[in-house]
């Protein structure tokens, strides 16, 4: 089954083997099918990010979402499309510019930090160096990073990244979430109850917290 698992990077779906929400599109309404299937097709070209920004963003998203192999969920294109279309949440902190500008500024800042530490742009650094740099930004808490509140930058990065990633059916497959549910709905709600089309978790003990205990 591993080859056929429709997951990010085609990795083996250890917990929900064979689960494929796209096999269920027949049970969805047309409007929702249209919206979800657009994410499966060819991603829109990058329009908002400059090539330099695009490279940094790609590396950043690979890190944030731990995407190492193709086929990747095309986060860069999905985020770029939102910014190009100004599909933001509208609000911004009074000590930060609007989202698009924050993206430009912070990607440049990432490159600047990488240059200072390793004499390479962020994207050209090794995975380990990239990860260490990101962890150092996260560790700043609400302290300043290039004149911005680090926590707010981090939250903006992860918000955009996760909104793209977890809207993608491949990501749903690996977390066991069936996606759209109209007009069919659910008939078996409750602890340990499953619909015929849901797949049982084969590794219920794979609690990420347990590993830390």
């Amino acid at each position, binding site marked *: 089954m591993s080859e056929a698992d429709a997951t990010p990077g085609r990795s083996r779906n250890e917990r929900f083997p064979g689960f494929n929400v796209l096999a269920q599109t027949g049970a*969805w*309404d047309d*409007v*929702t099918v249209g*919206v*979800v299937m657009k994410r499966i097709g060819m991603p829109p070209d990058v329009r908002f990010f400059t090539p330099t920004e695009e490279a940094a963003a790609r590396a950043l998203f690979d*890190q*944030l*979402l*731990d995407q190492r192999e193709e086929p990747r969920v095309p986060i860069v294109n999905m985020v770029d499309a939102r910014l190009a279309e100004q*599909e*933001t*949440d*509208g*609000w*911004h*902190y*009074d*000590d930060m510019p*609007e989202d698009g500008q924050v993206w430009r500024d912070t990607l440049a800042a990432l490159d600047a930090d990488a240059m200072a530490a390793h004499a390479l742009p962020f994207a050209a650094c090794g995975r380990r160096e990239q*990860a260490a740099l*990101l962890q150092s930004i*996260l560790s700043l808490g609400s302290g300043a990073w290039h004149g911005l509140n680090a926590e707010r930058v981090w*939250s903006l990065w*992860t*918000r955009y990244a*996760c*909104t793209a*990633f*977890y*809207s993608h059916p491949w990501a*749903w497959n*690996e*977390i*066991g*979430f069936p996606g*759209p*549910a*109209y*007009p*069919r*709905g*659910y008939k*078996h*709600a*409750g*602890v*340990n*109850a*499953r619909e015929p089309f*849901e797949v*049982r*978790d084969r590794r*219920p*003990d*794979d*609690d*990420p*917290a*347990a590993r830390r205990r």
Partner: protein
Amino acid sequence: MSGVRERNASAWLLPAEGSRSDHRLRDDMRRFDDSDEVDLAIVGCGAGGGTLLQRLARRGWRVVALDAGPFWDPEADWVSDEGGSHHLYWTEPRVISGSDPVPLGSNNSGRGVGGSMVHFAGYTPRFHPSDFRTWTNDGVGADWPISYDDLRPYYRDIEEELPVAGDYWPWGDPHGYPQRPHPVGGNGEVFLRGALKLGILAKVGPVGISNGRFGNRAHCIYRGFCLQGCKVNAKASPLITHVPDALAHGAEVRPNSMVTRIHIDERSGRATGVEYVRGGISHVQRARAVAVAGYSIETPRLLLLSTSRRFPAGLCNDFDLVGRYLMVQGAPQTAGRFPAEIRMYKAPPPEVSSEQFYETDPAKPYKRGFSVQTVSPLPITWAEHVCAQGYWGQALRAYLRDYVHWTCTGALCEFLPQPENRVTLSDERDRNGLRVAHFAYSQCDNDRQLMAAAQDVMERLQRAAGAEEVITIKRYAHLVGGARMAADERHGVVDADGRAFAVPNLYITDGSILPTQGSANPALTIMALAARIADRMADHARAG
């Protein structure tokens, strides 16, 4: 419930099969000219505006509600998808600040006919009688110029019209609901189990989700996408609970019409109509009276934008009260990890709640309280919860792969109204060239203590139910206030009937007028208040 249909036939005016929208009613809708002097122009067709529209149309008023957003067609415009529902939110530019700034967008306000209730979760609790006198009782907050008893009959009416399903309610003013409680899913089951173990009283509901067919509205299909707009028409919003009946009684709803200014006659000081932009063209709708119901941010903003010689600091702002005392509820969220599969995405997120901690507990150092409810984040929102713990990369993916094992509860803490928590105008401008709202928010000590107490209860509850790990994040929910009602013009913007002290034919009929917020979700109270104001307006007009 035999009286409901006679009072409000909305559910019976929707088509029985196929399309979920009343296209015929909308096509045949009465359309006023800008130059017609309507009896009332309402700004915003959400919880407050939509209810007011229906009530006054029933009383024979010539009313039009202008809404900045679309006239939704659930079948065509909404999707059963989290990422694809961005268009339901108010995403015009806004600036936030303060020591505890409140992020807006998806979590805070809606747009279009139906307002924020289009994507509200669906909880419809009443306020408690104590909410109306927190100053007298506890020396915090403010007393309302009305009492619980003034609202009671309106609560009952609206509960029948939504309709509300739930257990008999033992808290506040004890009452029953028109419909039996819904069956609960995994998240609700765990909540009930944990509460029982701890000796916390928990009840199923109350939700504005029909349990069974209601008129031509269909039964809930337990698909869990309530915050993305209910495509089924099971969950209440004014779009389906009040607008159809309003149209059938000669009201007009004018979508995609952003009101930019309220016009005032400089001599008489009375409102004469509203200026609005539709399709890039500016219009003025004449009106004998104006009601503002644009949500707690846009309502104060519109008043502040409407300057004139008589009101140089903004309409009704003689005492610098417009935009002040804005409130959010502290809404920490605790997730728990269970060996069993919970699959919290099934069933509506609002399932079970407890109001055991709602009232002031003399044994505690803080005043007022909080409520605890189930919330069931879908994957994107769940990822935000996990990211807020500092997880990213591999750890983030691992937590998300574990999604089916998690439950989630949320608290609503009664943050106190403070004058510096307010909307002002920023120097930034929107695409209409209007200054955008700047919303400043800072917590006080009591607020922080409530957050901590609520977190403690939720974590104990999850653990009592068997959670192996719990993680809590801090959030906010539900903006109200910003143009509060009071006994006099030195303490509030409007009187007990929603009428502006400064402009006798200007009303405010949305969540902005709430002086305090309790720890109940506000939509039912906003609708009940609007229904009451409508009665007062109509009676007043007849008497006058």
